[in-house]
């Protein structure tokens, strides 16, 4: 528990390097996209004041872009632009377009017609009217648009970490998956501060009189470029190979921290979401990734697991964890859930995952097929003596397991089932369980130990290399601390693993993590 007692300030000063990097990336992302959005939106906004017949269409399109949920927009970008800064910037700039186009348009349309006519009558040409009359007079309105866009961008940029573009989202989402409040706050507070500061500065700018605005708008592009360039400072160093790690992996003792401490591995690392990591490795955008050993995409994308020769990755044996209340309330439950105990090996799980993640079969179908082939599938009894609530985290394997349990409970008992799948990461799922919002979900021993219990590092060292010791420890502690029961393990070990493309690993002759380190250090 000593990690919990660490104050936010300690965390921030300990991680000040990363915090600075992420903040710079965050500001950079915000302003690169803002700058490009202004470059596109301003002329477009001006253009539709000249061709009013297009104004509806253009504003409509920009409006629709804004209604796309940010995660989805980032998702759309990956097939087009891959991962990293490029898709993040494009997604951000698409969000920023609407306020800039709209305010440019309304600002210019709103310029007093008599003033425009006077300008024309004095012999100004259309460019002189634009630059000397329309733009200066529309500037307060345009600045308001830029202000809106900036604040939106600071917020949306936290999501950029999902696609390896960096930013304060790394701490926020890493913290959420690691159940580390300090880490969440270390990302969230600076992000909020950035939004408030930029909002304040731009609001001041808006209130300037015309003379000051003139100087301000002249220096603004320069300032934008300067802020935008912040993004490139942290990533200026490169490396032989590029690793893509999930935010969760980045902050874990049994993840990147362990790689650094125990192996002394130094690799150019970007943070990326699990959802796109495998594909990015397959497409040569990443060389080393932090995957899970039973992930179906391992098979789909021809990746190999590097042997953990120093044993830093603890065992992650899966087992259902259930609230004791629920076991009492549903006497048949334990027996039924244990039907799956020992049934699924690593290779079976990889195959099941392959079917959902790669062949896109539904988890329900994969679960039913598996139970049928093991002759333990029974038709539903449509029971109604109580509802068992099953949760799952937000990835395929958990969906499959949840489906299996659902089928078993319906077939073997008179209980009905409500599934609450896709409960984000460990923290969300575990909180749902302790808060009596679900009765059970599949958990992994390693996660229970390191992410939830977080014992002292000494205790971890003594437990971690033995799968039985780990299981016994979490079983005992969960019961004592949370009144939650670990049932029998399902069989497979979904441990963290470093993986590479099979071809590349062969070519570079890398089989273990130590091999990788040696390769990276060789000249």
């Amino acid at each position, binding site marked *: 528990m000593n990690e919990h007692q660490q104050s936010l300030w300690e965390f921030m000063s300990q991680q000040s390097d990363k915090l600075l990097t992420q903040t710079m990336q965050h500001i950079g992302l915000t302003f690169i996209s803002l700058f490009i959005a202004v470059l596109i939106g301003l002329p477009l906004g001006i253009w539709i004041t000249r061709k009013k017949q297009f104004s509806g269409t253009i504003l409509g399109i920009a409006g629709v872009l804004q209604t796309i949920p940010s995660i989805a927009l980032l998702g759309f970008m990956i097939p087009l632009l891959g991962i990293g800064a490029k898709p993040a910037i494009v997604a951000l700039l698409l969000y920023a377009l609407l306020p800039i186009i709209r305010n440019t348009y309304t600002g210019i349309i709103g310029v*007093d017609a*008599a*003033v425009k*006519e*006077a*300008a*024309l*009558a*004095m*012999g*100004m*040409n259309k460019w*002189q009217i634009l630059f*000397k*009359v329309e733009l*200066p*007079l529309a500037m307060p309105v345009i600045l308001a648009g830029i202000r809106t866009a900036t604040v939106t961008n600071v917020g949306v940029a936290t999501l950029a970490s999902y696609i390896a573009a960096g930013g304060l989202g790394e701490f926020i989402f890493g913290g959420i998956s690691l159940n580390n409040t300090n880490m969440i706050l270390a990302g969230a507070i600076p992000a909020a501060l950035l939004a408030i500061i930029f909002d304040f500065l731009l609001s001041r700018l808006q209130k300037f*009189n*015309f003379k000051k605005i003139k100087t301000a708008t002249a220096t603004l592009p320069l300032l934008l470029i300067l802020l935008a360039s912040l993004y490139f400072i942290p990533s200026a160093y490169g490396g032989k190979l590029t690793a893509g790690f999930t935010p969760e992996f980045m902050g874990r003792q049994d993840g990147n921290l362990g790689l650094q401490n125990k192996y002394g591995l130094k690799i150019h690392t970007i943070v990326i979401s699990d959802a796109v990591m495998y594909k990015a490795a397959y497409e040569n955008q990443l060389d080393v990734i932090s995957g899970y050993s039973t992930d179906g995409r391992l098979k789909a994308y021809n990746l190999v697991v590097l042997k953990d020769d120093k044993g830093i990755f603890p065992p992650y044996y899966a087992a259902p964890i259930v609230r004791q209340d629920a076991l009492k309330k549903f006497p048949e439950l334990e027996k039924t859930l244990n039907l799956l105990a020992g049934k699924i090996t690593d290779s079976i799980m990889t195959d099941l995952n392959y079917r959902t993640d790669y062949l896109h079969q539904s988890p329900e179908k994969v679960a039913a097929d598996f139970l049928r082939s093991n002759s333990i599938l029974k038709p539903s009894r449509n029971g109604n003596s109580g509802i068992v609530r099953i949760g799952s985290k937000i990835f395929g394997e958990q969906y499959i397991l949840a489906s299996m349990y659902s089928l078993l409970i319906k077939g073997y008992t008179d209980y009905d089932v409500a599934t609450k799948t896709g409960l984000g990461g460990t923290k969300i799922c575990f909180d749902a369980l302790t808060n009596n919002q679900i009765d059970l979900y599949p958990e992994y021993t390693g996660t229970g130990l390191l992410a939830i219990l977080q014992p002292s590092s000494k205790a971890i060292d003594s437990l971690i290399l033995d799968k039985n010791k780990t299981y016994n420890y979490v079983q005992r502690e969960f019961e004592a601390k949370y009144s939650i029961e670990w049932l029998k393990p399902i069989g497979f070990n979904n441990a963290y693993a470093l993986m590479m493309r099979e071809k590349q690993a062969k070519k570079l002759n890398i089989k273990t993590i130590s091999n990788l380190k040696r390769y990276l250090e060789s000249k």
Partner: protein
Amino acid sequence: MITVEQLSKHFGNVKAVDGISFEVEEHENLVLLGTSGCGKTTTLKMINRLIEPTAGSILIDGKNILEQPPEILRRGIGYVLQNNGLFPHYTVAENIAIVPQLLKWDNKRIEKRIAELMEKLHLTPDYLNVYPNELSGGQQQRVGLARALVADPPVLLMDEPFGALDNVTRAKIHAEFKALDELKRKTIIMVTHDVQEAFELGDRICLMDKGKIIQIGTPAELLFKPANDFVSGFLKEQRLQLEFRAIRIRDIWNWLPPAKVNAKAGSFSADSDVWTGLEKTKFGESANLNITWKEETKSAGFEQLISAFYQYQSNKRA
């Protein structure tokens, strides 16, 4: 000289201007007068090509304006609008400097010219660095006038330039306007729907209705030789005052009493209209005017002016 020939402008079915022709002499002030919507503004804007005509032609000093680039044409034509159209983001000085800057004058010349105009228009230099919204309506209109005059264009177009001012301010500006030497060397077309103003400021008046010219002539011609009932009807309400405006001192010269021997030569001009003379005597409250015309000096007070006016009228009718 401005020559307008068979000029028309149609907006869809609306014949805003319908085949009008007229000429404005060098240094003349022609007033376009008429009810709202009769096509005054449209006519005016065709002269600096803010509106392109549907048919017809406009010549300035014999040159077809459609054959010149509109920007170049406009830099040689001053334009004053009702709501002045000052740039709110420019100071007074910057506003006045717009056209000279377009014409690429050097800064010294611009500064000198602005100082000169400010003085002529009774604006103190304190106002140079002030923004238009800090000025009164009358001051704004003066700045608008200065802006139109700064490059000394030979032609000046004015669309209800005093329309937004209160009566007192307007009377003051009218007086300044008439006294301004700069304007005496300009060919001016001014739009108004105020009959008094037309009579006070116009050398000739062009009365329009529904896009057509009903009559064009001097104020006196409109008053005393109206082309039709529309014209007399249009002037009826303010007839008496207009007559005072339309008739000049020299017209009633014969009926004015001579001045005492040895009287000083008067400074009041016999070209002024009778109304101005009446105003000058403060409607009887101040001393007689000494007026000198063709080497002869006459003296008249309120009573004498009125009496001479009526004698002139009855004599004319006879």
